[in-house]
C-alpha cells in the first residue's frame, strides 16, 4: 500500500478569516521521513489535521493512495496515524491499555488481535509496564510515548507527529528520538526542534505563512543559516550540524551508539 502524500495548492481559511494554508504543494514518497519546519503560526498543525481529514480546505490532497473526501475518511484514518502535540488531548481513557486499544477496537479488530497489537505498540515505545496505569500518573515523556503507541496500535502506514519533542526534558527527548528511530513508517514530523529533524529526517520542508518556502535534504536546509533566519528558525548556539548523523532505518546497520544502548 502506498503511503505517499500529494498535496497540490492546498489552502485553508479559518472561520475567523485567518488564512492558515495558502497553496501548499508537498509530495512525500513512500518510506520517506520528512520534517516540516516552521515558526509558530506557520500552518504546521493545520496541515497535519488535513492529512487525516479532520479539516478540509481547497486544493487537491491525496494521502496513502486515497483522495481526501468524506467518503474516504474511515479508510484514511486507518492509514494515517496522527500524534497530537499535547498527549493529554489524545489519552482520554482511564488506563493506558484501554487507550491504546481504543483505535484498534474502533477498527473492529477482534479482542485477541487487539491485545496483541496493544502489547506490540507498547513494546515499540518501551512502555509495557505502564499498561494498567492511568495517563495522569505518567511523566510528560511517558505520556508522549503512550500517545505514539495509541496510534501505532492501529498499524498506520503513515505516521504524522505534531511537535513530538515539545516540553520534554533532555532525557525524555533522547528516549523519544530512540523510539522514533526504530519505527519503520513513512513519517512526517512537524517541529521547530531542528536538531531532532537533523537526527531523524532525511528531508526537510519549511512552511511559512501557509506556503512551502524550502524543500530539500534536511542537512542542506538546516545548513542554510540565512534561509532559517528569514523564517524565524535557528539551530541552537554552538550546534555543529556536521557532527550529527542521520539515524539509520530499523532495517539498516545500526551505529555503535545505538548498539551500545541496546546492549545495556
Amino acid at each position: 500500500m502506498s503511503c505517499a502524500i500529494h498535496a497540490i495548492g492546498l489552502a485553508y481559511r479559518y472561520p475567523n478569516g485567518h488564512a492558515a494554508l495558502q497553496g501548499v504543494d508537498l509530495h512525500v514518497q513512500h518510506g520517506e521521513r520528512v520534517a516540516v519546519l516552521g515558526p509558530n503560526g506557520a500552518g504546521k498543525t493545520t496541515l497535519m489535521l488535513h492529512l487525516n481529514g479532520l479539516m478540509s480546505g481547497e486544493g487537491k490532497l491525496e494521502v496513502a493512495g486515497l483522495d481526501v473526501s468524506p467518503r474516504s475518511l474511515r479508510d484514511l484514518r486507518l492509514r494515517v496515524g496522527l500524534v497530537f502535540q499535547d498527549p493529554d488531548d489524545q489519552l482520554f481513557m482511564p488506563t493506558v491499555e484501554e487507550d491504546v486499544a481504543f483505535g484498534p477496537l474502533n477498527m473492529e479488530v477482534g479482542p485477541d488481535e487487539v491485545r496483541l497489537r496493544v502489547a506490540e505498540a507498547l513494546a515499540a515505545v518501551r512502555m509495557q509496564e505502564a499498561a494498567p496505569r492511568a495517563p495522569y500518573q505518567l511523566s510528560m515523556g511517558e505520556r508522549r510515548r503512550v500517545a505514539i503507541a495509541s496510534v501505532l496500535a492501529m498499524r498506520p502506514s503513515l505516521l504524522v507527529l505534531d511537535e513530538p519533542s515539545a516540553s520534554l526534558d533532555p532525557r525524555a527527548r533522547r528516549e523519544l528520538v530512540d523510539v522514533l528511530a526504530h519505527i519503520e513508517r513513512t513519517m512526517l514530523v512537524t517541529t521547530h526542534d531542528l536538531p531532532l529533524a537533523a537526527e531523524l529526517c532525511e528531508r526537510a520542508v519549511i512552511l511559512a505563512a501557509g506556503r512551502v518556502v524550502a524543500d530539500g535534504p534536511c542537512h542542506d536546509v538546516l545548513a542554510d543559516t540565512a534561509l532559517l533566519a528569514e523564517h524565524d528558525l535557528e539551530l541552537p548556539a554552538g550546534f555543529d550540524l556536521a557532527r550529527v548523523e542521520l539515524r539509520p532505518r530499523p532495517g539498516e546497520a545500526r551505529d555503535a551508539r545505538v548498539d551500545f544502548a541496546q546492549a545495556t
Partner: protein
Amino acid sequence: MGALCNHSLELTGLAGDHASPVHRLDPRAKIVALLGVTLVAVTTPLAAWPAYAGCGAVLAGVAVAAKIPARDIWRRARFLLPLVLLVGLFVPFVRSGGQAYDLGPFIVHEDGLRTFAAVTAKATIGTVSAILLGATTSFPGVLRGLEAMRVPRLLILIAAFMYRYLFVIVEETGRMRAALAARAYRPRTALHAGALGRVATAMFLRTYARGERVYLAMLARGYKGGVPQLTPLVLGRADLAFVGLVLAALVSLRIAAEMAL
C-alpha cells in the same frame, strides 16, 4: 501535581485490600447490592430501627470483607454527610408533636427529634453504601457497570471525561493560582476578587478548546460515537451469590420491619 490535587483527590478511588473478594466482584453486582441497601433504608418506616441496624450490619460485613478500615470510611463520610444532613437539620424545629423542649429562642418537639434521628440513620446508610461502592470499585469500573446496565451512553461519556480531565484541570488551576500568588496577589476585599473571575473565565475557555482538541484526536483514531471495551464484563457465580445474599437479607429485613409495626 499540586497539593490541592493530592489532598482532595486522595479521598476518591479504591481503599482497603484491592484484591479482596468484594473488590473483585463485577461492578454491576456491587451497584445493585449497595443501591438495594440504600433503597431499603430509605423506604423503611421511620420507627423501624431493627431494619436500619440490619442495613448497617450488611454494610459492616461488606467493609470487613473488603478490609476497608473504619478510618477511611469516616474520612470520606466527613465530607459527604454534613451536606446530606443539612436538609434534616431543620426537622426538629419545624415538626411538632410529643413532648416539647424549650431551647431559648427555639422549641424542639420529640416527634421532630425522632424524625431527625431516623433521617440521620437513612442518610448515613446511603452515604456509607456509596462510599463502599467507591472504595471497592474504580470509577471507570462503576461507569462500565452502569453502561452495561443500559444507562445512556452520553451520560457515561460525560462522567468519564469529567473524571479523566478533572486531574488536568486541577493541575492547570493550581498553576494559575501559583502564578497569581507569584505576582503578589493576595485578595483582601471583595474588590480584589476580580482576578479570580478572570481565572475562571480563562479556565472555561481553555477547557472548551481542550474539548475540541480531544474530540479531534478521538476522530483521528476512528471514533464513531461509542467506546468499545476490550474485556466485556461477565457476571460470575460469586457476583450472583453476592447480590442474592445481600438482597435476600434486605428483603427479609424490610418485610420484618413492615410486620413489626
